[in-house]
């Protein structure tokens, strides 16, 4: 009967099908649906830019208006992928320009974006409206100037955590006076100054501005003036939050904040005088999202005071800073024994955990929490332990997403957390010592993570850490039925571990493993599995060159890439040679042509 529906009706129905997965499913029903769907799809999501090429995407979806692309593997965030590996956006922009695509939106993650790309983008698509760059690199403020100057209908310029070369040109001043369409502007990751007057004028002439995130160089008095002009903001990222708290400026800021009744999301505090923080209390009561994780050295109690005003919080990103160095001198004038210092560190951990206790008793609507490490450089700042996590799980029943860096963990705590919060979709735990055992029993943390996967039936993303044997992977394979992404580091005993996962997790899309004893047996046991996944990363494992070659031969629709760094670039390595870094992914278009010398596609 459905065959008699005219295509226009189908198209109209498909308008309501928005998620890309649903649209992919729709397109597989029959040829007619495939055809209708492909001509009506406006938003295309490509999880791995090398799985397909621009020409094929354009051919299939000629009416595409919004493109999302992801480039480098996730572990590139942690310096495991050498520079110049790839992920260039230029060919995509070039192809779309050539084919006259009416591009309006481009969202990129972990890609290399050159100024040239940005210039081409700005000049090729007259209706371009939205540019979102996350964790990208390769461009400078000159590229941003091109966007600002040429995109007449720009609504969104959102730069998140990118490495941008600041050329000290006046990119923000390049927005013409006729630009009044901005809805969202986020330049928090830029290091250089922007012209304050130009910024104020821009804000004043964009009445639809809802989201504004400033960078470090924007001082507090500019913020105050901006807020006076834009009380309609929903999302604010402060720049520098440093001023004399008793000054008139701070007083004006507090008044301006009071008028911003729509702010639901707050971030920034890229430099902060804690005594100025009370200026934001007026907006805290309605906040649903708070990101304090970029604030260097806000002491925990100031943070806690702020959080205690935020009863409606659904998302919170923090780190807890407690400066150890002063306390060692405060407590005695002679060198502390190891025991003494250990004791102090435990107490300071308590303060971090108490901070989480405050969150647990205040933020009953909390859904997402990220607790970042407070001490990366070993200067002796304390952090949080399993107690904080347990407190959160007890106090925040709606919690479904967590990223938690901690000093230590126990199975008992994880079991309790699993019982308290069965709704986790994302659970990422990172112990600062990657192979630390249960802090009480000294056993591996297998049982704890096992409880998590057993209890959280909707778990889609999991990162494990701490001392872990093959047992934890048995549990993951058995229970994590919805798992799509798994990150493993320094874990497992043998190939069995990896096999449990590959056999058990039917919905697995991305598997990334580092420094774990998984080898050829696991890699080659079920080669067909990898075509059901987006990608597999294995570094510092036990897989050999020969096994990778075998895999590549058996599976022509996978690209098996070996990354060769350092001096030992042999012309043809021995098959028994261990492979340091391997990244494989399914693809429709064969080996990529832009791979650098150190990347070999087998």
């Amino acid at each position, binding site marked *: 009967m459905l065959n008699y529906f005219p295509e226009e009706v189908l198209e109209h129905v498909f308008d309501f099908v928005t998620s890309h997965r649903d649209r992919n499913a729709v397109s597989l029903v029959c040829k007619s649906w495939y055809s209708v769907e492909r001509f009506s799809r406006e938003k295309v999501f490509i999880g791995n830019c090398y799985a397909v090429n621009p020409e094929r995407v354009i051919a299939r979806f000629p009416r595409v208006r919004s493109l999302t692309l992801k480039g480098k593997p996730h572990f590139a965030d942690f310096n495991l992928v050498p520079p110049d590996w790839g992920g260039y956006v230029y060919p995509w922009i070039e192809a779309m320009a050539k084919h006259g695509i009416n591009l309006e939106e481009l969202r990129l993650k972990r890609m290399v974006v050159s100024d040239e790309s940005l210039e081409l983008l700005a000049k090729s698509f007259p209706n371009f409206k939205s540019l979102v760059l996350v964790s990208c690199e390769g461009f400078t403020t000159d590229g941003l100037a091109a966007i600002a100057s040429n995109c007449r209908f720009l609504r969104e310029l959102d730069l998140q955590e990118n490495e941008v070369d600041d050329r000290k040109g006046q990119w923000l001043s390049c927005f013409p006076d006729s630009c009044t369409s901005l809805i969202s502007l986020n330049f928090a990751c830029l290091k250089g100054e922007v012209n304050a007057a130009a910024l104020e004028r821009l804000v004043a002439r964009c009445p639809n501005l809802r989201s504004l995130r400033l960078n470090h160089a924007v001082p507090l008095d500019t913020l105050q003036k901006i807020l006076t002009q834009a009380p309609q903001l929903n999302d604010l990222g402060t720049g520098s939050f440093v001023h004399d708290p008793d000054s008139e400026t701070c007083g004006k800021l507090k008044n301006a904040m009071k008028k911003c009744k729509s702010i639901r999301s707050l971030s920034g505090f890229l430099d902060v005088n804690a005594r100025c923080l009370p200026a934001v209390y007026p907006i805290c009561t309605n906040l649903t999202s708070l990101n304090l994780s970029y604030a260097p050295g806000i002491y925990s109690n100031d943070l806690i005071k702020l959080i205690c005003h935020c009863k409606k919080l659904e998302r919170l990103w923090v780190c807890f800073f407690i400066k150890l160095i002063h306390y060692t001198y405060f407590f005695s004038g002679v060198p502390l024994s190891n025991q003494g210092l250990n*004791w102090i560190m435990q107490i300071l951990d308590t303060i971090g955990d108490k901070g989480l206790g405050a969150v647990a008793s205040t933020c009953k609507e909390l859904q997402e929490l990220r607790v970042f490490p407070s001490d990366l450089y070993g200067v002796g700042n304390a952090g949080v332990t399993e107690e904080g996590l347990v407190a959160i799980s007890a106090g925040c029943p709606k919690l479904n997403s967590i990223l938690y860096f901690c000093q230590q963990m126990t199975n008992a705590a994880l079991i309790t957390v699993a019982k308290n919060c069965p709704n986790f979709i994302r659970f990422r735990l990172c112990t600062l010592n990657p192979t630390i055992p249960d802090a009480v029993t000294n056993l591996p943390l297998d049982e704890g993570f096992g409880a998590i996967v057993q209890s959280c039936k909707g778990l889609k993303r999991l990162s494990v850490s701490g001392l872990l044997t093959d047992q934890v992977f048995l549990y993951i394979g058995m229970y994590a039925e919805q798992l799509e992404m798994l990150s493993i580091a320094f874990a497992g005993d043998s190939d069995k571990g990896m096999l449990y996962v590959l056999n058990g997790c039917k919905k697995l899309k991305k598997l990334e493993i580092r420094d774990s004893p998984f080898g050829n047996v696991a890699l080659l046991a079920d080669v067909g599995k990898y075509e059901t996944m987006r990608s597999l990363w294995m570094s510092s494992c036990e897989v050999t060159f020969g096994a990778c070659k075998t895999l590549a031969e058996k599976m022509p629709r996978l690209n098996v890439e070996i990354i060769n760094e350092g001096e030992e670039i042999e012309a043809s390595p021995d098959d028994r040679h261990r492979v340091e870094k391997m990244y494989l992914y399914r693809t429709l278009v064969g080996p990529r042509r832009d791979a650098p010398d150190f990347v070999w596609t087998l």
Partner: protein
Amino acid sequence: MLVDLDPSCLPHKFQVQIFKFAPLGRTYDKGLIQCDLPSCVEMTMGNQRNDLPDSEYSGSLKTELTLALPGGGGGAQAPKLRPKRGFPEAVNLNLGTSSEDEASVITQSSSSKTQVVGWPPVRSYRKNIMKSCKFVKVAVDGAPYLRKVDLEIYTGYQQLLAAFEEMFTCLSICDVLNERKIMDSANGTEYVPTYEDKDEDWMLVGDVPWKMFVESCKRLRLMKSSEAIGLASKTMSSKGSNID
């Protein structure tokens, strides 16, 4: 945020020695210490009856942890020790004796662990934010202009002095009677490295552990030795009351 800590507000069973490091002369005076001290630490130091004023927080943060120095003393209860932290397992704190030592509260195992690439898994963007840049002015008496150094890039006093040598090429570091001295090789003038700390006192470089120095140093001055003697008596009566 600086809090003047009056030791009389502390519970009697908690023994605390407070020091201010006197500049130049290497003796310690008991006195007022100004340190960045969040008030929640005062709470954790309170006794179980919670005589301290109520917390401003809506949630109760009163802890049952009673603090005392390890090994007891004065009838204090032993602190409720949680299980030993696995990491750091041992802490190496070298203080005091040589000015080159840092207060390395990093553990011995952490120094190898921190060399693991990409662990903990934090994006470089975030890592760079946590890393601070501490640029301070360096003045040398008699030089026509000042320089700036980023203290964060050095790991100890030795490196800093070497940087001075590089920046002010007339200077060299010589060993005179087992002490490192900065000298102008042309005319034999000796320089004393001093710095202004957060309290606006001029201090001799090298007394405190490196990390504490980086924390508190606002500017540096290589002062001619001949002037330094006069300075000692001036700074002894600097602000900051002495409480016995």
